[in-house]
Every structure is written in structure tokens, then in C-alpha cells.
């Protein structure tokens, strides 16, 4: 058991240390100016010094990201179910869901502020737009890949549409759904940060996006790096939470959760 843990944990940790050493050494050796690329020691120091600010900001961003992600999960699943009910509907509407994936959020964010007003609602909307498509695509794919034999079985037993959906399609599609949710989790954080650049409140409860802007403006690149790493960490935490939930739900009967 211990050797398994070591084998999976040691290599990435060792790689991280090697990277940090290379970064620190490189910056010192080449005398790169601190406001261009701070060494890891400076970023770490800033993380410690400004820990409370980073934590508070991370919490604000997390709220909006979670709201957007939750909405994505719900709305995404609903849209996928709707599209799966008719091939014609799917052919007609699927390309427009693709639009949600490809629209450049940086360009849309100001519009969101115009419609929702500045603050968490616009930021959550931004997180939603960026993260909804993977949920739709993967859920739809999952529903469509139900074993035809099982479908026939349900039809033979005269199952109603709703029963087929709830007892066959959604449980079958669960692994796909969780794949979509895992992808959406990271995207939701990105969407929240980008939304904050344009719509975030910059006083009182300021999120990580605002912190990045303010620290960049004051040439505090070490704090900016710390904020960026926090954002990445937030994405990882959300990703981990979704993965864990998926593993729990699928543990008993699907090979994808080993």
C-alpha cells in the first residue's frame, strides 16, 4: 500500500522540486528583474505574507465559480436530455450549443455586465458560459451510447419515456456525465477569473481576478503569481471534488471508477 502511494506521489513531487530549483536558480543566475519573473521564493513569501487576502479572494472567486458550475451541471444535463429526445431537435440545435464553446468570453464579458450589472451574478454567468458545453456534449454522448439491447429490453417491457430516461439512460450515461463535469470544473474557474477582470467588484470582497489586476498594476508580480497559482489550485480542488464524487457514485458497477 505504502509503495503504491510512493510510486504515484513521488514522481510528480520530485518533478515539482526539480522545476522550482531550476526556476529559482535560473532567475538568480541570469539576474532577471523581480517584477518580470519573481523567483519561487518571492512568490512563496508573498503567499505567506498575503495569505489572508489570497484566501478571502479565493473564496469570492470560488463562490462565483461554483454557482456557474452548478448552473452548468443542471442546465447542461437538461439541454442534453432535451436534445436526446429527438434526432431532428439535436441536428437543429446542437451547432448552437457549440457556439457557447467557441465564443470568446473576453469579448462577451462586457455584455454580461451590461445585462446583469457588475458583481457576482455577471461573474457566475461568465463561469457558466465557459463551462456548460462540455456538460452538454458529454451527457448527450452518454445518453446516445446506451446499449441498444437494453433499450430494446425496456421497450419490450413497455417502459414509458420518463422511466427509460431515469432508469436506463441517465444511469448509463453517468460516467460520461462525470467526464463532462470534470472538464467543466476547471473551465468554470477560468470563466470566473475572466469575468472578474471585467465585472468583478474591486472593493470589499474582491476576487482573484481583481487581485491579479491590482497586483499587476502595482508591479507586484510576486503577488500576481501567487494569485494565479491560487486560481489554478482552486480549479484543481474543484476537479478533485468532482472526481471523488464520480468515483463514489460509480464505484460499485463501472470499470471507469477503479
Amino acid at each position, binding site marked *: 500500500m505504502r509503495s503504491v502511494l510512493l510510486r504515484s506521489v513521488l514522481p510528480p513531487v520530485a518533478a515539482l522540486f526539480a522545476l522550482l530549483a531550476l526556476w529559482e536558480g*535560473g532567475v538568480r543566475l541570469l539576474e532577471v528583474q523581480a517584477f518580470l519573473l519573481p523567483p519561487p521564493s518571492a512568490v512563496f513569501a508573498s503567499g505567506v505574507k498575503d495569505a489572508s487576502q489570497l484566501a478571502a479572494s479565493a473564496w469570492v472567486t470560488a463562490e462565483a465559480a461554483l454557482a456557474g458550475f452548478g448552473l452548468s451541471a443542471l442546465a447542461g444535463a437538461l439541454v442534453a436530455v432535451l436534445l436526446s429526445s429527438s434526432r431532428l431537435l439535436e441536428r437543429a440545435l446542437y451547432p448552437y450549443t457549440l457556439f457557447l464553446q467557441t465564443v470568446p468570453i473576453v469579448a462577451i464579458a462586457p455584455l454580461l455586465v451590461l445585462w446583469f450589472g457588475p458583481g457576482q451574478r455577471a461573474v457566475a454567468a461568465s463561469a457558466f458560459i465557459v463551462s456548460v458545453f462540455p456538460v452538454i456534449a458529454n451527457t448527450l454522448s452518454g445518453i446516445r451510447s446506451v446499449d441498444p439491447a437494453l433499450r430494446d429490453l425496456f421497450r419490450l417491457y413497455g417502459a414509458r419515456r420518463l422511466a427509460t430516461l431515469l432508469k436506463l439512460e441517465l444511469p448509463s450515461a453517468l460516467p460520461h456525465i462525470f467526464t463532462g463535469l470534470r472538464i467543466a470544473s476547471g473551465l468554470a474557474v477560468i470563466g470566473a477569473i475572466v469575468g472578474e*477582470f471585467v465585472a468583478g467588484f474591486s*472593493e470589499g470582497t474582491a476576487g482573484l481576478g481583481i487581485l491579479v489586476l491590482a497586483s499587476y498594476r502595482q508591479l507586484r508580480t510576486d503577488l500576481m503569481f501567487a494569485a494565479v497559482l491560487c486560481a489554478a489550485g482552486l480549479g484543481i480542488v474543484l476537479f478533485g471534488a468532482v472526481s471523488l464524487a464520480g468515483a463514489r457514485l460509480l464505484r460499485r458497477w463501472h470499470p471507469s471508477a477503479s
Partner: protein
Amino acid sequence: MKKVCWVGVLWCLSALAAGCNREKPAPAAPAGEGASAPAATKPAPAKLKLALDWVPEPEFGGFYAARETGAFARNGLEVEVLGGGAGAPVPQMVATGKADFGTTSADELLVARSRGADLVPLFAVYQVSPMAIMAHASRGITSLEQLLSAGGTLAIEPGAPYTVFLKKKYGFDKMKVVPYSGGVARFVADKEYAQQCFLTSEPLVAKKQGAEPVVFKVADEGFNPYVTLVVTRRELLQKSPEQVRGFVQAVREGWRSYLENPKPANDIMAKLNTAMAPETFAEVAEVQKQLIETDETRAKGLGVLSRERFETLGQQLVDLGLLEKAPVVDEFLLPEFTGVGSAPAK
């Protein structure tokens, strides 16, 4: 973890490449020798880059005029003007050699210096800071203090020195503060919206779109740094002082020419910045004159810098918590740019 590693590696490599890529200084045009050299062998003009911290607008008119009227060429220089925009990292660009000269504000210069960028100020276009906050006149607000306690939205750049100054003086608790990224679209659409602006720019554009703005200058509140301040890195000043002096001389001539006749430079800038109408360019050029020409510039020359103002500013930034200690002005402000001992070059 792996995700962070890859991003970190790519970032480091690209940032290291950027940091290491200190461009070699432009080949020094022997301007000194050129004067006495025979006319047949004219030295090639030195190629230099000027980075602007905003899109081409009348605040930069003198630079384009210097190029068009041949002022740069007369001083042995060929200058490429790089337009900027929101978030243009001018101090970083000049510090790393991506540009030889740049425009920034005096407060940003002091902050950049405190972070290790050895930049030196040369010429201040705006002697009075045009930084202002504009709101809708229909709200009946008569002072900035009243505005900041009246509620509504305020769009202002997070982390900027004037933001920190106003926050310290009046507090932002009653306002919904959001980042400012340029333009007046949201201002025109929302009566409860207030935003930062340049006295000479956004209010005029807003008026054109049918809004009635009332403008409050930040300088009136006691924060008055030089704006559109030309800076360079000390390295260039030490290696090629004649180029730097020639640049400043040409810029002074360019601004003199622009103040007298802004049209040629305005035409060029209007092509580069189609968001501003040509008539607006002319209006702004007229309105900004009072900020550029003051009694001090009439006595000592356009763009002159003052020791006392830098000292005051340094102390203000320390009080705002943006600098750890007050900078020693003599370390970066050279007497020749304060109008000391030089006849005002008209």
C-alpha cells in the same frame, strides 16, 4: 499538479527569454561628430522606439508632430511610435529594452523604480494631471466627496495610485467599484454610473453620444503627478546621452508645433484611432492646452520637471502604502531636465 508544472515551465521559459532579451542599444549616431563631418557622409539616423501607454490621442500629439515636422530627423533620430492600450506595460517595456522611451505617469515611475526598474524621467507633457472622475450631471452632484458617498457604480482601475489615493481620502464603502477598461459605453447607458476619465478625453466623447457629464479633477483633491511623462532607462542615457538629449529636444519642438497647429498630427492619429472622431481630436487638442502650458513651462520650457513635485509625490506614495520609503529624487532626476541652467527652448 502536472497542469501547474507545464504552465510553470512554459511561463518560466518565455519570461526568461523576455528577461534575457535585452536589446542591444541602437547604434550610436555620431551626432556630435556629424555636425563637423563633411556633408557628403551623413550618419545614418539612430533607430529608436517610443512606447505609448494609451491609444493614439491628442495627449500624444506632440510626438507624432515631432516625427512629421522632421524634428526627430533634425536631431539624427528615426523614431518608431508604438501605440498602446489598456494595461500597456510601458515601464516594463522600457526597462527591458523592448522600447527605448515610453510614456507613463510620475507615480508609476516611482513605483517601477522601487521594484528595481532604473528608469529616468525626461519630459512631462501634462504639467497638471488630467485624471478625473465623471458622473452624470442629472444626479445633481457638486463634489467628488459627495459622489463617493452617493452610491451607484464607480469604474476605476484597481490598484492604481489615484484609486488608492481616493479610497484613502474618501472611502469606497458606499460604491460598487468595478474595473475600468476604457470607453464610455456603460457610462452613457447607466445614469448611476461614474467612471475614471481623462479630463480631455472621455467627457467629450460622452457628450457626443448625448450624455451630460460633470467632471471632478483628481488634481483638485491634492494628487497631481505628472502624466504622459517621457521616461527612458538609465543604461541608454549613459551609453548614448546625445541621443536622449536629441530626443527630448525634438519632442519639445514637436509639442511646440502641435500646440500651434494640431491638425497634421491629428489627421495621422485619427487614422490610427478610428474610435475618436476627427472633430473630437481638434476639440481635445484645444482643451488640453491649459494642462500642458503653464507659467512654469513658459518660464523654463515645455515639459520641464520639478524637484519639489517629485518629492511631494514620493511622500504621498509612501503615505498610501505604495512605496516603502520615499525615493531620493537626486538619484534619478537630472538637473538638465528641470530647466536649470538651460535657456527655454521655444
